């Protein structure tokens, strides 16, 4: 708590709270990052669950790099958003719930990525020649990770909205 109070008293934190542009700019980055990381995660999940089967899975590799970039943008902007209101956010349950959900969503994304590479390796196995080699078997693990990714990001977005509605008033 003392650290949070100290953080709140810093010039930077004060500037964030009092400036007209600090929060809006941070929220812009946060919205764009969200669109990128959640959008790509959901598209990949859809593909894993059977949508657009003609779309080759390796096509998602570069998109994943972009998704992680979006994740990093939101981690950075999220840290700065926290720096602006550390005590109020620390006292908001929805904030902690969102953090847990984001970790879960990140883990799902990591599991999806692992599933992608795992399936690429499976293609190289001897005996899987000809047309059969291009047909990648979507494992149950990949499907579970896909559904988890959809649900966790959905819940994180909802929790994010609830933070704004349930933040306590500024401490005296």
């Amino acid at each position, binding site marked *: 708590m003392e650290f949070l109070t100290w953080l709140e008293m810093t010039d930077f934190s004060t500037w964030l709270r009092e400036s007209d542009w600090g929060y809006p700019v941070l929220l*812009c980055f946060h919205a764009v990052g969200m669109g990128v990381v959640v959008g790509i995660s959901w598209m990949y999940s859809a593909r894993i669950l059977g949508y*657009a089967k003609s779309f080759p899975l390796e096509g998602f590799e570069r998109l994943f790099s972009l998704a992680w970039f979006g994740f990093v943008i939101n981690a950075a902007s999220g840290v700065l958003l926290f720096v602006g209101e550390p005590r109020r956010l620390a006292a908001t349950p929805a904030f902690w719930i969102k953090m847990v959900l984001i970790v879960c969503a990140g883990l799902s994304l990591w599991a999806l990525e692992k599933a992608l590479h795992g399936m690429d390796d499976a293609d190289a196995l001897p005996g899987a020649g000809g047309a059969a080699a291009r047909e990648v078997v979507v494992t149950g693990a990949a499907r579970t990770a896909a559904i988890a990714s959809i649900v966790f990001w959905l819940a994180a977005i909802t929790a994010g909205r609830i933070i704004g509605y349930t933040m306590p008033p500024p401490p005296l």
Partner: protein
Amino acid sequence: MTEAEVLQWIKDLPIGAAVRQSRWLFALGETLHFIGLCLMVGGLLIVDLRLLGYIRRIPMRAALAFLPFVIVGFLINLATGTEFFMTDPFMYWPNPAFKLKMFMVLLGGVNALVFTVMEHRHVLVLGRDERTSPLGKITAGASLAIWFCVILLGRLLPTFEGSTSFF
């Protein structure tokens, strides 16, 4: 009818009244609006980045198979956006960020129309690694830029609330 009368008529519609009375309904609308945003951005990234050549080794037809997500996302946001507007037309209508955002949405629509009418059937035949025409790339780049701006302007609506101009 005057502008104020039209806005008042919109404000008096039942949907606006219902949402004004329930913060929960408004929060639900916001959450759905973000979901629509993510669906649109996800779908657009696949389609536009394939058109631009940033992602390759994908038959164009397969990339375009993600267009329905863009449309569904857009429709969700059109519906929730209309809901928001109906709760407080007098706040949104004069807001310069709102006006510019709506203009950009229309521009996005025009850009999509240009692509659909002029490029869609030409790009459908493109296989893995095959490049798009200049017009295909221009509409794809414009699409990303336009919808990026729409997101930013949406985020800036509260900042310009009560203002009548950006300056």
